[in-house]
């Protein structure tokens, strides 16, 4: 390992502290998940995760997270575009606000959204007139997930958009392409990796989200019960094996998403660094 003598001091101690803290805080706790899983048989796990109620929760979680992330992908591109390309009063405030979902505790967001969208709330009462219920339905869950996912696509697209050279747009314009066509054929292809990265990160976050959703979801089994909530209720009943089995499915989904995002991100960094 030590082929060349290291000039900068502190490798031993910094590596030591890093690995010690990492092991104590992350690796050992995660290992206990592996240990606990190894005590369970495959059929045991399979029986838990194919329970109708658990399957229904997977469906609810997937559908709501997907719709919320798609809406955020579209709105994220629009927001990034507005923030990068236009100048208008209040732009800085708008830009600073994007991070609010990261800073605002999820429980606070949860109760605020619940009260806004309940039948007597400011927004909910408007929809209630038309007989549309938002809070305590899947629509409510989706709204909470949109809230959580706002920063991801915006922050992924923004730096790429800043780096895109207007030269290409000028060329497209001079060659006679309309603005819409230029956007579709010249700008959008450059943004795809960033959009996908942001979408993937938002989707992953939405699948695991708990705090902002529990209040607005209503938590009706089969209808509005998300997967993290099922794990929570299994834990409250001290049913650790069921909780672990369901958690494994969630972890698997999270890792697949992360893997895909990483693949795309490698390409994305190339664009950011100005390569082809």
């Amino acid at each position: 390992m030590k082929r060349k003598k290291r000039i900068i001091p502190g490798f031993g101690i910094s590596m030591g502290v890093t690995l010690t803290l990492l092991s104590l805080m992350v690796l050992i706790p995660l290992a206990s998940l592996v240990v606990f899983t190894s005590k369970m048989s495959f059929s045991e796990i399979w029986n838990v995760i194919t329970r109708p109620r658990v399957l229904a929760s997977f469906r609810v979680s997937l559908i709501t997270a997907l719709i919320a992330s798609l809406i955020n992908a579209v709105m994220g591109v629009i927001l990034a575009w507005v923030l990068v390309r236009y100048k208008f009063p209040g732009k800085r405030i708008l830009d600073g606000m994007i991070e609010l979902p990261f800073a605002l505790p999820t429980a606070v967001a949860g109760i605020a959204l619940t009260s806004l969208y309940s039948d007597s709330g400011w927004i909910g009462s408007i929809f209630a007139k038309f007989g549309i219920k938002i809070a305590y339905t899947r629509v409510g869950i989706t709204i909470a997930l949109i809230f959580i996912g706002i920063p991801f696509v915006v922050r992924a697209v923004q730096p790429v958009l800043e780096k895109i050279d207007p030269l290409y747009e000028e060329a497209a314009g001079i060659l006679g392409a309309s603005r819409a066509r230029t956007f579709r054929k010249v700008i959008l292809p450059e943004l795809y990796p960033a959009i996908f990265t942001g979408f993937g990160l938002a989707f992953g976050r939405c699948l695991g989200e708990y705090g902002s959703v529990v209040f607005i979801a209503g938590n009706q089994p089969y209808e509005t019960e998300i997967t993290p909530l099922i794990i929570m209720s299994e834990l409250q009943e001290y049913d650790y094996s069921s909780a672990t089995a369901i958690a494994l499915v969630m972890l698997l989904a999270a890792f697949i998403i992360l893997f895909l995002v990483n693949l795309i991100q490698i390409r994305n960094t190339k664009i950011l660094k100005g390569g082809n």
Partner: protein
Amino acid sequence: MAAEKTERVMPREGSTEIHADTKGSKAVRIILITLSVLFLFIMLVMPLITVIYESFRKGFGEYLKAVTDDETVGALLLTLEATVIAVIINTVFGLFAAWAISKFRFRGKKFLVTLIDLPVTVSPIIAGLIFVLTFGRQSFLYSYLEEIDFMIVYAVPGIILATVFVTFPFISREILPVLEAQGTDEEEAAALMGARSFTIFRKITLPHIKWALIYGIVLCAARAMGEFGAVSVLSGHLRGQTVTLPLQVEILFGDNKYMPAFAVSSILMIMAVVILIVRSIVEFIGRRKGEE
């Protein structure tokens, strides 16, 4: 740094202003700005207004009573305790980890970075679950812990562990890109001239990462104060003992005490807004320093 590179790859004459005929129509511009403002107003501003409105619905006196309630003050103190510990541990970790990763070459570096990022990619509920599995009743550690009478699950140490876990990569993540962009030349030169490690860190590395470090600490503190899912799993909700501010919000809301729930929320919301402002300032100063 990256900007310079782009400049070199794609030389461009004249201004960076977008040419008039590629600017797009004014109508599109107005529609998009309106759409963005409306979206953010409905999704982000209205929830904040709701919190303030509901908090003061019954007057300022009731609000004060709700936020100075013994349970709430206790929850605030526990939240601050967990936050301070999380910031300290993660700052130490972040500095050492970023130093090790950016200044040295070793095998498995990518893997190490992935492992460090792991805590933010798992659901908060799973974060709570793994600590329950490690220290809970069915763990082999449980009997030892019982012997020395040190409870982790459904006790304060569990809450602190969960908080540290969910914010684990926050500081290293902010410092690392800055250190990697800076390279190792300056430190190597200093080391060759005989500077000791702490001197190198203080005189060369720290000035580079100062703003990233502050920003990381701010992010870490924000997330630590607001963590709900993981803490909820490990807390057991023992009123006045293992309840943090976000959990207090949940308890009050569940008891249909809406006004007090929003009053407690308003404390967390003020913290969040302060954090956003600090973040903007830090970013602004950092960018100006970067341009100098």
